[in-house]
């Protein structure tokens, strides 16, 4: 239960905006994002780092937010699914997920898109195998991954075209 120790004040950057929140020392970043900040796009599937539904980027690095303590966000930059579309325009990954019908129920989708964004940030032209191994930390129970992998590879191709 809540103790008498005062809660921790965290100043961080979320999706480019400065954000402050209060948390307990044992709260996870996932809990802080969802409950304290109100960004519920990041999902909880297991809380043990096995499903990837809570994937976010912390200073550009892909992490399961259920295994990061909320105070660790102090002074760092967090990117969540809510920060992937820019200026009202969907990211090519989001567009390709829609085009390919790469989601059925959609609960794993935010985690997949954040994880795939992290992949394209470090490897703009992944092979199918590279995409499959990079995304092996994200569970999807609906699609069998086929359309997700195709969406990621097509988004990579589209991004390449734009940057060339």
């Amino acid at each position, binding site marked *: *239960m809540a103790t008498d120790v005062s809660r921790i004040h965290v100043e961080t950057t979320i999706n480019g905006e400065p954000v402050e929140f209060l948390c307990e020392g044992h709260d996870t970043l996932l809990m802080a994002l969802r409950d304290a900040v109100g960004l519920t796009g990041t*999902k909880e599937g297991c809380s*043990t780092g*096995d*499903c990837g539904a809570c994937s976010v980027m912390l200073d550009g690095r892909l992490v399961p937010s259920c295994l990061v303590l909320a105070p660790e966000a102090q002074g760092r930059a967090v990117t969540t699914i*809510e920060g992937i579309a820019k200026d009202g325009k969907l990211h090519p990954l989001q567009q390709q997920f829609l085009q390919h019908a790469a989601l059925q129920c959609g*609960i794993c989708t935010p985690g997949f898109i954040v994880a795939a964004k992290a992949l394209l940030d470090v490897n703009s032209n992944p092979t199918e195998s590279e995409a499959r191994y990079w995304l092996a930390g994200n569970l999807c*129970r609906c699609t069998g991954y086929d*359309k997700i*992998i195709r969406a990621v590879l097509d988004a990579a191709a589209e991004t390449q075209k734009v940057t060339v």
Partner: protein
Amino acid sequence: MSTRHHFEYVGTRPIRHDGVDKVTGRAAFGADFSLPGMLYGAVVRSPHAHARIVSIDTSAAEAVPGVKAIVTGRDIPKTNKKVWLGGEGALDLGDMGDNALAHEKVLYDGHAIAAVAASTLEAAREAARLVRIEYDVLEPAMTLERALAADAPILHPEMTTGGKPIPGATGPTNIAARMEIKRGDVDAGFAEADVIVEHEFRTPMVHQGYIEPHATVARVGADGRIIVWTTTQGPFLVRDACAGILHLDAANVRVVPSEIGGGFGGKIPVYLEPLAIVLSQKSGRPVKMVMDRSDVFRATGPTSGCHIVMKMGAKRDGTLVAASASMWYEAGAYKGSPYGAAAMCALACYNVPNFFVEAYDVVVNKPKVAAYRAPGSPMSTLATESLMDELARRLEMDPIELRLKNAVATGDHAPYGPKYGPIGLRQVLEAVREHPHWSAPLGPNQGRGVACGFWFNGGMNSSATVSLDSDGSATVVTGNPDIGGTRAAQAMMVSEELGIPVERVRPVVGDTDTAGYTDLSAGSRVCYATGMAVIRAAEDVREQLRLRAAKIWKIEPDQVVWEGGQARSLVAGDDKQPLSVSAIAATLAKTGGPIVGRASLNAPMAGPAFAAHICDLELDRETGCSKIVRYTAIQDAGKAVHPSYVEGQMQGGAAQGIGWALNEEYIFNAKGTMENPGFLDYRMPVASDLPMIDTVIVEVANPSHPYGVRGVGEVPIVPPLAAVANAMRSVTGIRFGQMPMSPPRVLAETTTRREEPAVAMSS
């Protein structure tokens, strides 16, 4: 009913209406909903698989600051009510209520005993830890063998065996029911056989594995009105089940479904909802309850583990002459395994003149099973399709040839009685034979397997309304949570009927107060049955539009026809321009007011679905680890409304079946505790485990549906177990009857025995 053949929208692949919300994180799933002043609930779960509850002391828990309410079984008197689920039988609310909160006994590890609501989740959890429960621990029945033994621990002393009686059986039993189906003279059939194959099969309990845990918020108002926001496949069932379990008037209960993060059958029962309602009643505050993954594994789902002994006989030319099977399905802690469907599906692909199939529903001290995609069929099909593979080997026949020789076709009798209408099994098998995968060369340490599968597909009750706006756009409301693209399919049906673009149709998932009664998003029924209601409601709109055109033109209604998306005048010599939907819609206020079309129906069982899958598996002989290197799923969809989502069902079902075949299993220790209640140790397929899954959609129209739609969601999980096992047989020479074919098991088998087909052959 005539089936349409020409479509403008059906068969295209528009972007789903709820898509942008789901790729941007805006879509609100079960755990995303909150209310001001809300309390948090935590559940106290049994650490024992089988125990009598001697006493529950909540005093220490009540003393925790912030605790507002505690509920135990004492608060919920047991009910004997049932909820009927059309052709799918009845749900026993007594069992469902006792499963949600134990009364006299706990029957599995994880069984809920009490729940606490407090102002913070931490306080609720601490209080839950402080609920003191005294148990009289009993021996658990953890296997079918133990549950069926003469001196078995009995779960329910009052239980008697329903269905077909067991000769000579007396006294307490764990067999909840037995059924048999038969045709011809099975002994005479086997006597005629040139080749007989027989094998034993065992599959463990497996979980549906939806990524979204169960989550609920309940609010009881001062007026007694109850609203439950929850992630469910059936809001109307949640309403009726909660009302029945809690002795409430269903008229006072409103259930609002959230977006649903997967279900596969596992989000049909209620678990948290009744607890949250009682906690809200007691505290006067809204109460939110969310399961963690361990709760989901221990206390929801799974589907049955089973034991099947099966025998099949054929003539030298491949004609099947006889089959017999005995199957025991684990129900978990309460009756209700899919033993009946299992028995009916086992031989549904083939004409077998003589057969005898018996199936048992057996309670064990494991979680109460829930539906899982084509419940019961994947396991019994593993048996049948493994034996078909053995027959083909013994007869030195091509496995497709053997299946085609015996495949059911229109007019044949299903093993469970009725005559099949138009069905597509033969077309599916032909498509397998023509697919390049079937004749592609295999690499070293690779094997290929093929298997068929059958599922009934559901009908049941559905309602729909279509409201036309003055700008010519439309809203369609149904009561089915959208579990995989059904909003898009429903909008496409409205477009097809009214000729308005898909983007101008707004599909809405209603709640129990805003939608007409609609059964579950389950049984492969949404696109079929609810789709039929949507089509009828859109037709109703179209008919009203036609009458409005007559009114506008001041001619008799029978002088107006609806053609090509517009009203045309039949008056001879009339030069009136045809009126489009938007042209008539713009006049609504002047021609009689708004137009709302409605339809409600009780759909007959949908057209049966048949599928066949081809699997190429590569084995690492040093580790026993296998990898699926190529996979093709072929299925008769009747008519694919949105082909991308039909393919998605086929691919997703195949992946679940592959997981079942290769890795997934509930592991219990001797005390009956589940040892792998997390995704690390319950190993579901990940992206790097699978290849692309090729799909071929066969379309043999289902005459019960105006577009020919059959259900598509369930049959894709039926063939994979056997397709993978047959591929494993090809590469190892070993017939694996025990699932999963996990690396340790495969390594043990391949290093201790070689080329032992384990089949008997007569004559």
